[in-house]
């Protein structure tokens, strides 16, 4: 069979290179669209050939790379990564369409970077070798760094450098963790290997408990910063806010932190010296992020910044759900990643549109936009409702699964999260009221509604939000399979 995973990873990168050669905006965006659509088709094909009843990796590809260090080119997808790949594959073409008519300098670089990011992110989701994993992990940084620094807002340089270095430090700490597990296994078996499943399986045989905890914490830190979770979130508001709309959406697509949590942290969690400590660390981080992000979002003046903080709050559910260690909560957390990706992309698209149309994002300066932009208003209200966890929309499935599941083991933390729900509703509705409703602020001048391309891409995502809210099974089933396997592992260890 064809190396489909290599294709969905490499095609975007190759196309990105091609786009760099293009001269005009038309060629660039056309190539970009083709590339992303190809990836989408391949992913859909893969999705329909994916067996969601087994938890093992599928479509595996394996090639020796640097044998003397046990490094190999090892790809595969499972129930954890498949939905996230699907998410990227779906949103990216729509993102290209969304930006179809935008005017910006050097569009070829722009689209090239977008595709490069897609390739790198999908690479992270498919890599089954720590070396490869880390390579893609770092590779996601660079295009985003450029996207923010070139097309970003007024404060872009500070934001991009901060994001770049902050997350790079995290990656390096994670690398230390990887080294730890790598050599621990090497010393145990005498043969080096960077293979993720193999190393995760070896982890339990490490004698020194301290070593195990250190490795776990180092890896955890790397992922937590990327998620990002309180208190390591301070790169996020700047980066998300300063990034161009497409950049913000790509940031949202960057679900690698949570992915690492499920793919790498949970399988080794029960074998750490003090699992319960680790669990409570994650639970605390998660629940605090939820309520903390909510309060901060409430206090924001800038619409996009508010959305950024709301994303901190939402990603808290991921950490909390992972810590919940009930198949429902874990799969709920995975689903939260998926749905959060969809919802936030619409949110950021809306912010971008409002910013372009009115020239400001300060909520109090807006007002009554719904009268001028009815189409946007409809989609935006839906997105906001989804974001505040309204039933029937994808956000609710995730949150209720996380809350219900996690309550079994972590009641106290769930109560904290529950308190945040009202705040969440508050800042969403308040922002809507001030920005979209009420009397139109004439100072904004003439405001035009979203164009056909934007309507299409946002509309499609909105419909998906609705669809997965009503029928989550298409992605939730495979998540459940994977999470049940993880949880059964926990149960076996009596955690």
């Amino acid at each position, binding site marked *: 069979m064809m190396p489909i995973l290599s294709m969905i990873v490499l095609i975007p990168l190759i196309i990105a290179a091609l786009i760099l050669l293009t001269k005009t905006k038309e060629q660039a965006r056309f190539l970009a669209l083709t590339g992303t659509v190809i990836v989408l088709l391949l992913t859909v094909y893969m999705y329909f050939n994916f067996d969601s009843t087994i938890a093992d990796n599928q479509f595996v590809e394996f090639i020796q*790379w*640097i*044998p*003397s*260090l046990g490094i190999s080119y090892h790809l595969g997808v499972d129930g954890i990564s498949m939905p996230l790949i699907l998410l990227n594959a779906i949103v990216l073409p729509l993102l290209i369409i969304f930006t179809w008519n935008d005017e910006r300098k050097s569009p070829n670089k722009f689209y090239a970077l977008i595709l490069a990011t897609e390739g790198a992110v999908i690479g992270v989701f498919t890599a089954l070798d720590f*070396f490869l994993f*880390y*390579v893609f992990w*770092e*590779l996601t*940084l*660079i295009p985003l*760094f*450029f996207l923010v*620094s*070139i097309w970003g807002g007024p404060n*872009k*340089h500070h934001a991009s*450098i901060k994001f*770049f*270095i902050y997350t*790079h*430090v995290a990656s*390096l*700490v994670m*690398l*230390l963790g990887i*080294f*730890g597990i*790598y*050599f621990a296994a*090497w*010393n145990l078996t005498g043969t080096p290997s960077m293979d993720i499943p193999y190393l995760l399986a070896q982890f339990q045989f490490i004698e020194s408990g301290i070593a195990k905890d250190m490795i776990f914490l180092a890896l955890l830190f790397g992922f937590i910063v990327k998620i990002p979770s309180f208190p390591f979130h301070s790169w996020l508001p700047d980066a998300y806010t300063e990034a161009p709309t497409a950049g913000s959406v790509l940031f949202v697509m960057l679900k690698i932190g949570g992915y690492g949590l499920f793919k790498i942290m949970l399988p080794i969690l029960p074998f750490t010296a003090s699992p319960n400590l680790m669990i409570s660390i994650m639970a605390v981080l998660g629940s605090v992020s939820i309520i903390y992000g909510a309060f901060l979002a409430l206090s924001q003046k800038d619409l996009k910044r508010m959305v950024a903080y709301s994303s901190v709050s939402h990603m808290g559910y991921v950490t909390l759900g992972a810590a919940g260690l009930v198949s429902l909560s874990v799969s709920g957390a995975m689903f939260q990643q998926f749905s959060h990706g969809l919802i936030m992309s619409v949110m950021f698209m809306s912010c971008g549109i409002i910013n372009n149309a009115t020239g400001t994002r300060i909520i109090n300066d807006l007002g009554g936009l719904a009268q001028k932009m009815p189409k946007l208003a409809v989609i935006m209200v839906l997105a906001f409702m989804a974001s505040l966890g309204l039933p029937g929309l994808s956000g609710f499935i995730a949150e209720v699964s996380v809350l219900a599941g996690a309550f079994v083991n972590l009641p106290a933390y769930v109560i904290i999260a529950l308190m945040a729900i009202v705040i969440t509703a508050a800042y969403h509705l308040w922002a809507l009221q001030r920005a979209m409703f009420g009397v139109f602020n004439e100072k904004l001048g003439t405001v035009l509604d979203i164009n056909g391309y934007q309507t299409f891409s946002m509309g499609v995502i909105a419909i998906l939000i609705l669809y997965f809210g009503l029928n989550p099974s298409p992605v939730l089933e495979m998540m459940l399979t994977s999470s049940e396997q993880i949880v059964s592992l926990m149960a076996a260890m009596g955690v």
Partner: protein
Amino acid sequence: MDLMLFAPEITLVLTGLAVLLIGLFLPTGSKNILGYLASLGILIALLFTVSSLGTQATAFYGTVSIDALSQFFKIVFLVVALLFAISGIKYTEGNSHTEEFFTLGIFATIGMMFVASANDLVVLFVAFELASLATYALAGFEKKNPRSLEAAMKYFIIGSLSAALLLFGISYIYGATGTTSIPAIAANMDVLVSSPMGLVAVVLLIAGFGFKIALVPFHMWAPDTYQGAPSVVSALLAAGSKKMGIVAAFKVFIVALIALQAEWQIAFAILAVITMTYGNIVALNQTSVKRMLAYSSLAQAGYISMAFVVLTPMALGGGILYALSHGFMKAGAFIATAAVVYMVLSENKDSTDPDHIDNFRGLGKRMPVTALSMTIFVFALAGIPLTAGYISKFVLFSSTIQAGFVWLAVIAILNSAISLYYYAKVVKYMYFLPTNSEKISEPLPYTIALIIAVIGVLVIGFWSEPFIYWSMEAAKVLLIPGGI
């Protein structure tokens, strides 16, 4: 004995002399032919060396040895020399002293290569000095440029000082062991170990080599010299003669003075930490790119000297691989700077600091190839994956953890995190800051040199297996008794 073993050196000597002689009869206008000649000679030498990889022999009554280690480092030197020569073609354009430039460069390379294969302190010292003397002259190549002269002067004084220290140290070793042959020294160390002379000698030697490797505090000349000397020469210094110091240190300490391991391990631990931290922190707010690169190469030297501390095959292999990668990255970076300097000077003759970071504004538009390769080099230096810099850091740092020096690895990793700041700053200037000046045509030789370096960086990054293999082989030479 088989002269073919020395085919590379012989080729170089001949080339050097040929360049010198032919240069005498050429009018200034047509001297740039010499550059091509030199490059050709170096290339041939490089091919000889590559083909002789894996051969194992000693010559000249055991004072010179050909082995994986020497060949590996010869490749490093020759690659750097090649980049030096190719970019030199443009640099020396219209200069009446072209032949000196290339001859000196070639002789410096010969010196380095003999250091790499030296098996006797006499040879080592002489070759060391040969390289040094040639580079002293090169540093001051721009006789009319005060900066170049000052650079040369500082380099020379500190250089000769450290030469003296080195020789003094060697004299003690000779006195205590009664021989200058490296394996023989290793064989009868007992006197030296028992006497206080041991420590003194070790420290004197560290100072002597540390000057070339540019370890804090023996580094003081480096920033000034790298900044003041012609960029192409800085490339040779940073990428080439630095490695010479490293290989010499490898031989002398790990092979000859292994009995004093405890002493010099501690010394190197201290120096490595100080050096990498100092280099990175001071590099943070430099405005001269060459100076910034100088400090960054301090930091890199710090990383490499971790190999002395860890002292496992993997660590040494990592260090050796790092030497190669650093050769490509740093030489490339300096040559890119050279291109920029060339551009600036061609725009206004009397610009005092042509390598100021402001001259990099909008380079992405003005010199796309140079900018892109510079980006790759700095990211490689920062250790971004799929570059030579990453794989070398990977091997070196991970070996540090393997050997249990977690604290050292943590320091190193934090350092490379810091370093990202000033590397990213260069990229920021090249791509994100606006410029009013327009695109210019990039000088071909520089471009070729840059492309070669980029290819090197990326190939090592992607297809690392053979490089790791050979560096490990080289490391074995050092560690396995009687390997030499």
